[in-house]
């Protein structure tokens, strides 16, 4: 049998088409998502950071203090309109207060006790056990450290905002404008961000290195915010979670939040 030019081209074309499906097949069979846990750094192995919010003690003023301390430590801008009111479309938030019905929309009812309705619940990144933001990030700018903290590598953020769509808690903010003019007092020890990147709470990763507690925990003197290592059976967070009934935000989504609330 002789193969003429036409037949050769047909066979070559078919073979090329077959080859092009190989990468697809690989992706389908490997089944691993991008960005899920890299190597475990020695510095943070064997820890699992978590926070317990004791709402029996926490007052709205203290939530305000905590938010203030956090935003000052991390150069979070206070973006306001010309008349001085908060610009809710462009504001940047790492830690702030919200009402029960917003924080726990799936655990509310028509006749919720009035004292819960009036309370101010602190809202921050939940540093989830299976963070949806990490799965969707195309550049691995958001990733999960071995110690449970979901951190952002600002150097890799391209501002696509997939993570904001992925986060069911609204914990992330996008810099629509240069934040610097809106920072009243710049902390010279920490960077700011720039126009076009997303940002969120980092559980004070930069303070934990130095053996310090997160800024919000330090700002609340009543001890209503407790921070610690869930893997340490004698830690305060473990004790509180074991001794009290705690709830997490939207647990049915299966994200496994690391922030627990005692009501």
């Amino acid at each position, binding site marked *: 049998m002789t193969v003429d030019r036409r037949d050769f081209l047909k066979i070559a074309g078919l073979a090329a088409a077959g080859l092009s499906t190989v990468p697809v097949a690989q992706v389908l069979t490997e089944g691993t998502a991008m960005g899920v846990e890299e190597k475990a750094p020695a510095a943070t192995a064997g820890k699992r950071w978590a926070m317990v919010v004791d709402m029996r003690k926490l007052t709205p003023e203290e939530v305000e203090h905590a938010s203030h301390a956090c935003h000052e430590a991390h150069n979070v801008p206070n973006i306001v309109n010309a008349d001085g009111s908060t610009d809710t479309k462009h504001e940047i938030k790492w830690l702030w207060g919200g009402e029960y019905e917003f924080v726990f929309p799936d655990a509310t009812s028509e006749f919720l006790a009035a004292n819960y309705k009036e309370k101010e619940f602190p809202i921050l990144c939940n540093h989830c056990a299976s963070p949806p933001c990490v799965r969707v990030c195309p550049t691995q700018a958001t990733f999960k450290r071995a110690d449970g903290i979901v951190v952002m590598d600002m*150097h890799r953020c391209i501002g696509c905002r997939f993570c904001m769509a992925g986060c069911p808690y609204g914990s992330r903010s996008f810099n629509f404008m240069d934040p610097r003019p809106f920072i009243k007092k710049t*902390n010279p020890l920490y960077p700011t961000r*720039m126009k076009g990147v997303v940002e969120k709470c980092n559980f004070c990763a930069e303070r934990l290195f130095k053996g310090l507690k997160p800024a919000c925990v330090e700002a609340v003197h009543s001890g209503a915010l407790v921070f610690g290592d869930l893997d340490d059976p004698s830690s305060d967070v473990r004790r509180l979670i074991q001794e009290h009934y705690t709830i997490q935000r939207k647990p049915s989504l299966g994200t496994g939040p690391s922030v627990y609330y005692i009501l």
Partner: protein
Amino acid sequence: MYDGGKIITGLVIALAFLTFPFWWNKGQAAQPKPVPVITDQTKAMGPCIQPKEKMITTHMQILDDWRNKVVRDAQRYEAQYAPKTREPEMVAVEGAIEVVDNSLLTLPVIGPTRDLVSSGDPKLNVGNAVQIERSLQNSCMKCHTSKKDFCDKCHTYANVDPTCWDCHVAPEEKKQ
């Protein structure tokens, strides 16, 4: 020769164009080589994290390496040893400190960089070690206290404009 005058005029004009860059710059001194300012204050803080020659050529790689180590690997500190002086137990130092061999480090350098770690392992204070916080704002710029007189001196000359300062806060420049 036909049209000799026109051709010669054309050639003269072309030559003038081609040599324009040479006679335009004539009489002007060449750009002076930039001299980044090392103040006495900088010197008092101790030697740079690597020898000067190495810093000039590799500081960008060092910074790139640092930010990955800090943000992604959670190793905010490094302890540099001259390999000969390193004692066996120093290898086992855990935590946020990475142990780095530095064959260029010969003297027991005790700069202020070592004090940057308050919670460091006491073992690290033995031997010829330098502890360094890997930080642009809190380490480089603690010694090189002026971005304008130091980093910018070379960068303007070389026409590089790193975007780092969009986020990283440069030290306040003292008014002259």
